[in-house]
């Protein structure tokens, strides 16, 4: 009797049986870690006693006074902003260039897809070699045209290290923008363009007044999806610089990870990762509201 009842429920129109596995795994793997993180942020591992001890708000006070934290916040935002601007502008420019019936467009699009399937950690290693001061091809090129002093290796000089990492980032993810924008451009209706042609508008005017407004939804979604990942940057800085030289490439994620796993500051690491989470959630949800992105 009970089995039959359960059976009827499972095949009924109620959404619960359908959603249950998803809800279960999301609760275990996101809500529980969140609660654990909050709990951990009020504790700290004491190596002397090999145990976690309650420390009250000590971690949060430390966070507020930690210049390293504020520095990594600035670095993360800088990385986020520079990468996003470059990827958007380059992505749009290349998409406009490829949006024609020129020879081999499909092939070129396929080639651009290639960067998306390489693990970012391996891309980081690729650029580590290419930016090597002695035998790296990028360093060699920049040195031979006099843009780079051979005594200042790109990734070991505080002023250029972040740029060195950003090159890898922008190389890998500009094609992501190109593919999205290209699909957006191809879906635009032809009528406004025909009207503008008749009115004799310049191509810049057409782009500014027709293409950009009609692409705003596509751009908003691209910014959201890429922006979330940019703010969590870890792989590139981990393999290319480990945050150095000094602290010039410390991203928030890397700082939180190192505090936990390299310096055994479990409570402080949890505090830092919580802050990273809150910042992303707030910014992303604000953006979704303002840009009216819908799923």
């Amino acid at each position, binding site marked *: 009797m009970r089995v039959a009842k359960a059976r009827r429920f499972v095949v009924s129109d109620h959404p619960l049986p359908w959603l249950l596995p998803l809800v279960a795994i999301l609760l275990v793997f996101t809500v529980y870690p969140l609660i654990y993180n909050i709990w951990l942020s009020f504790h700290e591992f004491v190596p002397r006693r090999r145990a976690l001890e309650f420390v009250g708000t000590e971690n949060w006070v430390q966070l507020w006074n930690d210049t390293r934290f504020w520095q990594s916040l600035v670095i993360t935002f800088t990385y986020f902003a520079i990468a996003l601007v470059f990827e958007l502008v380059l992505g749009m420019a290349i998409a406009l260039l490829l949006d024609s019936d020129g020879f081999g467009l499909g092939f070129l699009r396929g080639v651009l897809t290639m960067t998306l399937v390489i693990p970012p950690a*391996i891309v980081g290693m690729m650029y580590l070699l290419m930016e090597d001061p002695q035998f790296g091809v990028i360093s060699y090129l920049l040195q031979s045209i006099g843009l780079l002093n051979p005594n200042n290796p790109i990734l070991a000089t505080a002023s250029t290290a972040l740029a060195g990492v950003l090159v890898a980032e922008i190389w890998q993810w500009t094609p992501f923008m190109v593919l999205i924008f290209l699909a957006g451009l191809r879906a635009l209706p032809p009528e406004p363009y025909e009207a503008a042609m008749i009115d004799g508008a310049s191509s810049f005017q057409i782009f500014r007044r027709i293409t950009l407004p009609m692409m705003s939804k596509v751009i908003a979604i691209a910014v959201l999806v890429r922006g979330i990942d940019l703010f969590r940057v870890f792989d590139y800085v981990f393999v290319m610089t480990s945050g150095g030289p000094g602290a010039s490439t410390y991203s928030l994620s890397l700082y939180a990870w190192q505090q936990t796993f390299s310096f055994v500051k479990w409570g402080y690491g949890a505090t830092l990762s919580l802050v990273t989470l809150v910042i992303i959630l707030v910014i992303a949800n604000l953006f979704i509201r303002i840009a009216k992105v819908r799923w």
Partner: protein
Amino acid sequence: MNGSFSTRMLRTIAAWVVVAVFFFPIYYWTSVAFKHGNDIFNRPPKLIAFTPTFDNFQKVFGISLGSGGITVTPGGGNFYMAPRVWDSIVIATLSTVLAVAIATLAAYALSRMNFRGRHSFVGWVLSTRMMPPVAVAVPMFFIYKNFGLIDTYTGMVLIHALMNLPLAVLLMKSFFDDIPSEIDESAIVDGASRFMIFRRIVLPMAKGGIAATAVLCFIFSWTEFLFALTLTTTSVKTVPVVSSTFVTSIGTAWGNMAALGAASIIPAFIFILLVQKHLVRGLTMGSLKQ
């Protein structure tokens, strides 16, 4: 847009040049995989004129191309990486199956059933996509430690499935939304149960979408770094993680690393080309349709 023949010609050339610039690092990396040590460390860098060698692939995969055809010599050597490739394949495949299975069920409900809080539920799923991996990895490390899941397939499969769930749910929902719900309704009138409709009608119609979702899940698991770095130690390791361990105290084994990297790109690239039709939709989590 139209234009004279010469401007079109110029555009085409410019497009090829730009894409060539983007392709160059991949070419360079692949060339490193076929180079001897002294060719890698040459200055100026050798781009074309070098003597190709299969040594790197031989060391990494234990496969040699001798005069007697292909011979396989597994095991041995610090850089023998075939088991690590196997780890990556197992984790990516199983986590993809798990994520897609859970996601198609949930996505069907989110696409077809009207219930209170459906929109906030979708919002919640989306917001889990925003969690920084580090905020999940830190607590998961301690939890995994208690349950003995560190360094196991089970642990990695679970965490990668979780990581891909938001994408898979939203993406599958967008594919289900494309299938007219009248089909479901007429089947209900005919007396079919929800699950029968799902299995017999909707799933077969969404085959292409499921394939696209699976490919993206596979690739994101294949390329993931932070979880694999944090939650494994010695017996299970994925390709991105071992790649970063080629940096040794006596120098970096660039050639071997490049061989592993170049070989690991090929399967992922073939997969992604197979679902190119749905790629943009996948990259934007189902919100943009091509």
